[in-house]
């Protein structure tokens, strides 16, 4: 049988993208659409005393100017109150009414004939503010007497959870060696090259709203949009065009989008909005600002007897997500590939006068850096080789399935296998020789290793157990049309992952047709089934699984029809191969006169020939809820040279050995690895959202917020060592975030290895030249 899964088929999406015929949000032509522009707060924290929009309203071409007060009449506030112990409920109006909470907070919306005019009119809006003391750091947020970012809360500590497994206190009491380490991660932002935007059309005659918006999760988005507009879900259609990068930024219903929707309805005219880059950097959403400390009790071989984690996260000024959830995942999976039974964590999440948090590709990315950095701290203290300390603690295949101290179960992972392959392929012995020789010449070279266990596909059981509201299921359908053409759909929405290609391969193989005959229809809530959308690393596993199940169900129906048409009692010896029905005769697959088209014609147009009692038509609709969690694993190795005089870091080599289960399209999976690793490296080395002590954001352009270019990112060697997951229908595990996790940890580890002769340890990011210089200034290397 000719299969396409596992082949690097070229992408179906490429032609339109390469020729300028992709259709992204701002490419949609909508006649008569008005353009929205937002006047944003210049203050980090201030009361809104008065807003005068009279002058702006009078500008020719301006149609309407609105504030939070009017929007509150047309829309419902967002209440974030999941029943999670230690998490305070909060509420957010569509636009702020009484006070602003960060620089860039949208305060007034101007709708005009074109975007240029709307921006002109913005200069005429007069807002009187009373500045308040800004809260600009986690320490500041928790300081006694700190100003309250949200005045409905008792303090800025919006979420606090603790947990203990085993008896870490006792282990610490017994152990003679204690190792502590710190990890400070800086604020970053997603920076998709396409900024946010929307185009909303209200149909007054049908009382129906169509929201065009590049969004990763169209159905959950529709649910929230309908609720907040006080419409039924049958009155709202969400259509996602091509998305120019998401990375987690295009999940939430943003206040600007809700404002445009409300205005389209009130004005009975289409309203569109596209933010500029400065707005995207200042006011879309931010991520990753965390401080963590670990304390490990160890024996003389470096074996971890107990581990404690304290983590504090800066969630910014508003909660578009439950504030506990990201830091919680870090704490849940911290122990990764290591055997640790006695464990405790303490997670604090604080509000500050900064842009609100949004999950960024691998929200939990810091976890691998924390555990690997802890291992390296142990090795430093005991003067052991960190490779040996990993070996001492790492799970063996015979330990699986392994119940982590938090109750999560690891199975079907291969951490030792990828680790040993990575060491061999990198050739550590050769590296150590080069490193020694270079040190004598004043060249400081380091190798960094990071072992990653990536939580990929979250099932409903995980959410339930973790106390996080939500479902992990996905839905899909496959239809064979009367001509034999195949259409398929799933609730996921792509933002560059190549679903149209990959899922065509999956459906084609499960059905028995050629992938070019399968078209994937996604991103329209009227035609796609209600699914949870694209987030995390779930797409491949949930999408591939549900489409496999639907296609298999449909194949059974096709073959049952074929058996009847061929006069056979059962379909047991029939198969569909590239759209032809074949029969197993005398040990050989032999063609029959039937094609899929013949069967489809009967199913739709001549149903009296179908097996007795069978429904006409060829459609299958399935839902699939994955196991509580699937895990992928990988080992990353990074080689870097640190220029001691300038503090510059040059990445020389990067390799990763990965096990992410069954791979549908290896070219696409490798591309996802490249992209994730690049995002991790870019974040660790260059990117930083900088707020000064007044809460002013000093990173509002791409000249200040630096993304890595082709010069900084080294070639990346990806070595596949996949083993299937035995619980998912396709053997897939999921991937695409682990690269970020591994890159952050590997580059930190490489730099610390390079700096070892100076007796210093980098424990914060970004690894900017001035930081490196601060560490080594005045230090002499020991040979």
């Amino acid at each position: 049988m000719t299969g396409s899964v596992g082949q690097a088929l070229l992408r179906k999406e490429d032609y339109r993208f390469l020729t300028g015929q992709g259709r992204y949000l701002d490419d949609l032509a909508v006649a008569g659409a008005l353009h929205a522009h937002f006047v944003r707060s210049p203050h980090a924290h201030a009361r809104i005393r008065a807003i005068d929009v009279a002058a702006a309203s009078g500008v020719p071409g301006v149609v309407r100017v609105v504030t939070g007060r009017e929007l509150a009449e047309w829309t419902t506030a967002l209440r974030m109150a999941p029943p999670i112990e230690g998490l305070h409920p909060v509420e957010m109006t569509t636009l702020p009414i009484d006070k602003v909470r960060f620089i860039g907070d949208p305060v007034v919306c101007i709708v005009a004939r074109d975007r240029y005019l709307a921006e002109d009119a913005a200069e005429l809006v007069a807002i009187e503010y009373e500045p308040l003391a800004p809260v600009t750091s986690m320490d500041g947020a928790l300081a006694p007497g700190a100003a309250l970012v949200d005045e409905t809360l008792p303090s800025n500590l919006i979420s606090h959870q603790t947990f203990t497994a085993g008896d870490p206190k006792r282990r610490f009491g017994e152990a003679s060696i204690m190792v502590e380490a710190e990890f400070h991660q800086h604020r970053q932002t997603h920076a998709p090259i396409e900024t946010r935007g929307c185009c909303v059309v209200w149909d007054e005659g049908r009382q129906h709203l169509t929201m065009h918006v590049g969004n990763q999760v169209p159905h959950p988005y529709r649910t929230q949009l309908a609720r907040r507009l006080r419409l039924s879900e049958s009155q709202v259609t969400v259509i996602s065009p091509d998305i120019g990068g998401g990375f987690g930024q295009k999940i939430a219903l943003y206040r600007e989008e809700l404002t445009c929707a409300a205005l389209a309805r009130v004005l009975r005219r289409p309203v569109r909005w596209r933010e500029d880059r400065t707005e995207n950097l200042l006011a879309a959403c931010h991520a990753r600002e965390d401080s963590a400390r670990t304390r490990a009790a160890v024996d003389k071989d470096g074996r971890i007897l107990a581990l404690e984690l304290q983590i504090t996260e800066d969630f910014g000024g508003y909660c578009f997500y439950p504030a506990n959830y990201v830091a919680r995942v870090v704490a849940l999976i911290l122990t990764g590939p290591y055997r640790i039974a006695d464990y405790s964590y303490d997670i604090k999440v604080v509000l500050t006068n900064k842009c609100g948090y949004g999950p960024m590709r691998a929200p939990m990315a810091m976890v691998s850096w924390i555990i690997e950095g802890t291992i390296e701290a142990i090795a430093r203290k005991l003067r052991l080789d960190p490779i040996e300390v990993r070996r001492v603690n790492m799970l063996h295949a015979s330990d699986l399935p392994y119940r982590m101290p938090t109750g999560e179960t690891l199975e079907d992972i291969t951490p030792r296998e990828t680790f040993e392959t990575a060491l061999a392929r990198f050739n550590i012995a050769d590296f150590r020789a080069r490193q020694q020789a270079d040190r004598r010449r004043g060249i400081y070279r380091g190798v960094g290793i990071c072992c990653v266990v990536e939580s990929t596909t979250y099932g409903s059981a995980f959410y339930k157990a973790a106390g996080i509201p939500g479902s992990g299921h996905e839905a899909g359908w496959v239809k064979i049309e009367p001509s034999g053409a195949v259409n398929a759909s799933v609730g996921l929405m792509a933002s560059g992952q190549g679903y149209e290609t990959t899922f065509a391969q999956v459906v084609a193989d499960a059905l028995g047709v050629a992938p070019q005959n399968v078209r994937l229809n996604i991103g329209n809530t009227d035609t796609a089934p209600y699914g949870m959308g694209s987030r995390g690393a779930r797409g491949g596993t949930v999408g591939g699984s549900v489409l496999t199940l639907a296609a298999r169900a449909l194949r059974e129906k096709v073959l049952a029809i074929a058996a009847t048409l061929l006069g056979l009692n059962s379909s047991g010896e029939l198969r569909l191969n590239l759209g032809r029905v074949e029969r197993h005769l005398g040990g050989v697959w032999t063609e029959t006169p039937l094609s899929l088209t013949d069967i489809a014609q009967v199913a739709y147009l001549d149903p009296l020939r179908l097996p007795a009692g069978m429904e006409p038509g060829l459609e299958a609709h399935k839902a699939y809820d994955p196991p509580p969690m699937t895990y992928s694993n990988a080992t990353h190795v990074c080689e870097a040279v640190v220029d001691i005089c300038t503090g510059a870091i040059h990445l020389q080599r990067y390799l990763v050995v990965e096990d992410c289960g069954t791979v549908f399209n290896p070219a696409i999976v490798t591309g996802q690895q490249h992209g994730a690793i690049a995002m991790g490296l870019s974040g660790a080395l260059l990117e930083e959202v900088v707020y000064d002590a007044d809460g002013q954001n000093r990173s509002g352009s791409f000249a200040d917020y630096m993304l890595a270019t082709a010069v900084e990112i080294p070639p990346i060697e990806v070595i596949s060592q996949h083993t299937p997951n035995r619980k998912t229908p396709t053997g897939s595990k999921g991937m695409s975030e682990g690269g970020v996790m591994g890159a952050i940890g590997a580059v930190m580890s490489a730099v610390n290895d390079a700096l070892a002769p100076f007796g210093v340890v980098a424990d914060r990011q970004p690894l900017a030249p001035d930081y490196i210089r601060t560490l080594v200034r005045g230090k002499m290397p020991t040979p």
Partner: protein
Amino acid sequence: MSELAQPLSLNVNGEAHHVLVEPRKLLCDVLREDCSLTGTHVGCEHGVCGACTVLLDGRPVRSCLIYAVQAQGVAITTIEGVAQQGTLSLLQQCLHEMHGLQCGFCTAGIVLTMQAWLDEHPNPSEAEIRGALSGNLCRCTGYHNIVRAVAAAARQRGKEAAE
């Protein structure tokens, strides 16, 4: 239409476009809104990301940094003018074969920038390709496959030239 709008003639991909626009309107916006050529994407509006790159008389220019009125009298090439009769250019084909694009938003700027660069640098090293590409930001691919595609296009061009 604003009273400040002025008639303007632009030569885009060999076709004349007569539009009525304000002098302050950026070339990228006129191409997208008035010429209906939406393949030119706007990523940052301050000349850093390179997504909006078009060619003026064969040379790459960021269309978010110039006004449309400045582009009169020159030949403008946008991504819509690169493939001929639906056939991808060599660089477009190499990007397709090497998986050198994911979300596709930055792709037009990369195709135009690197195609023009290859005209002047027929035999580039990998480091030179990376340097030339460094004015175009891509958030999806990590650049590696784009670099491979540009190198493959250069090799193929060299082969064709030798034949």
